[in-house]
């Protein structure tokens, strides 16, 4: 079924009785060509691009819970391509371009809203760093715009530019950045993949791998054994847990990140704004709630909830730049488990076990990467060669000293 404006009107006039489930509910087959483990954004995108770009026929996505219940449905929905390093920027710019065409491609309204992202500058040194970053972005074909304090004050009159401790001295804007309705990304990819014949199997937890003679033949699941030509791990925060079943240790720690939503307000915040002197970022959803977040709680965690010190820190960040938020009430808060890698950058690579592939280490920037991650992972799976834009995302970069460390903080996952 194709969605269209006409269809919405027709259904509205006939009691909405004609809508069908957006994807099939199927039992697993005995053998697939490709098994993608994890029905988050990345797993679903991978399955979709395997079918769409590479004509793969027998593809399954195995999800232990329901699709969209992981980080893809928990993040603060920011998309952007404002990275500095060569290993990253072409990949994220490819992702942003894919976002721009996604809704037409999958015939699904993902509410992609390019209202821009503004990274605030609070010191001269920070302005130098952001200027360099902006230049790197432009060199890679992305857009970047260094704004003066005056322009910022005019565009965002509610910002406290004269804060005594953290005055706003300008900002780096990416006007093509913005937000995307995160659940719709999972649903849209699922529906599009399903239409190309991908089996999406929910409530199917992978509990082990069948490995013989150094080759992965399939997976043990809560629904029994399923054989696969190629097995693709794509479970984000659960990466360590899953790959331990293949006796692999990863350059990854799992940490909890919290997110917050306020009560609904009239439109007050155009686009995404990030505080440059603390860790705070904020946007306004179409429903009117302010969606914001800050730092990790800072210690290994598999509990999908956070602690109070970070709540306080995030609210302090908010008050430092948006004093107008002082009386806004918090509506909801939650946590998600992040796959924090040793250098803050992801991995899309083969493993030392034949036919077993790995995608993970997305830290808290993996939502924006969803389309490109699926695109490049599908390329790797189908052709056994890394995609041009993801060739730096290898396991062996750590031992080779080729870390992609945007922040320059070293092998300390909780600091990225």
């Amino acid at each position, binding site marked *: 079924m194709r969605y269209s404006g006409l269809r919405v009107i027709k259904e509205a006039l006939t009691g909405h009785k004609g809508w069908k489930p957006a994807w099939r509910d199927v039992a697993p087959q005995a053998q697939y060509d490709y098994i993608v483990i994890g029905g988050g954004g990345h797993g679903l995108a991978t399955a979709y691009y395997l079918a769409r770009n590479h004509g793969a026929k027998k593809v399954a996505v195995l999800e232990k819970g329901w699709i969209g219940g992981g980080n893809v449905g928990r993040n603060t929905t920011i998309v952007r391509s404002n990275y500095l390093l060569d290993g990253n920027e072409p990949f994220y710019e490819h992702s942003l371009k894919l976002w721009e065409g996604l809704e037409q491609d999958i015939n699904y309204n993902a509410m992609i809203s390019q209202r821009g992202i503004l990274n605030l500058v609070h010191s001269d040194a920070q302005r130098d760093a952001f200027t360099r970053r902006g230049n790197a972005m432009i060199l890679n074909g992305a857009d970047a715009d260094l704004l003066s304090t005056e322009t910022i004050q005019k565009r965002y009159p509610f910002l406290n530019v004269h804060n005594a401790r953290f005055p706003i001295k300008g900002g780096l804007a990416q006007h093509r950045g913005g937000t995307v309705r995160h659940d719709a990304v999972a649903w849209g990819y699922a529906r599009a993949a399903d239409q190309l014949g991908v089996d999406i199997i929910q409530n199917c937890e992978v509990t082990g791998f069948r490995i013989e003679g150094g080759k992965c033949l399939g997976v043990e699941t809560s629904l029994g054994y399923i054989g696969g030509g190629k097995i693709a791990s794509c479970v984000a925060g659960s990466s360590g847990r899953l790959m*331990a079943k293949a006796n692999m240790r990863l350059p*990854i*720690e799992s940490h909890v990140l919290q997110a917050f939503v306020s009560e609904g307000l009239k439109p007050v915040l155009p686009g995404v704004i990030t505080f440059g002197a603390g860790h705070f970022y904020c946007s306004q959803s179409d429903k009117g709630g302010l969606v914001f977040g800050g730092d990790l709680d800072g*210690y*290994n965690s598999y509990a999908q909830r956070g*602690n109070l010190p970070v709540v306080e820190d995030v609210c302090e960040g908010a008050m430092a730049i948006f004093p107008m938020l002082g009386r806004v009430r918090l509506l909801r808060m939650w946590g998600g488990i992040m796959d924090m890698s040793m250098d803050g950058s992801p991995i899309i690579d083969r493993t030392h076990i034949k036919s077993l592939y790995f995608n993970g280490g997305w830290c808290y920037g993996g939502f924006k990467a969803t389309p490109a991650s699926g695109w490049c992972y599908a390329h790797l799976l189908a052709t056994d060669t890394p995609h041009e834009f993801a060739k730096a995302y290898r396991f062996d970069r750590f031992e080779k000293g080729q870390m992609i460390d945007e922040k320059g903080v070293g092998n300390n996952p909780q600091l990225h």
Partner: protein
Amino acid sequence: MIINHPILGPRDSAEFTYMGDAALLDRPDWQAKDALAQFIDYGYLRDNPAGPHQELWYHEQGDRSFLVVTRDTTTHEISSVKLANDVARSRGRST
């Protein structure tokens, strides 16, 4: 979270800085034949368990001691707290 410091008693975890897996106490021998492989492992690979985890907490806002805390990463329940010094000594090291 409250960490029951062996010397100072119960302290708010916000006084501490988290320093990662306590396996970092066991620095490899740089003269070993396979020192390179061991250091790659030491520097970059982690067990990252869902369940009990031995980890280092540095009492930065307190007495500056390093602690080895055993905490369940699925519940945040702390089952043991020891001075990292004592742990290292019990493994036969001088400090």
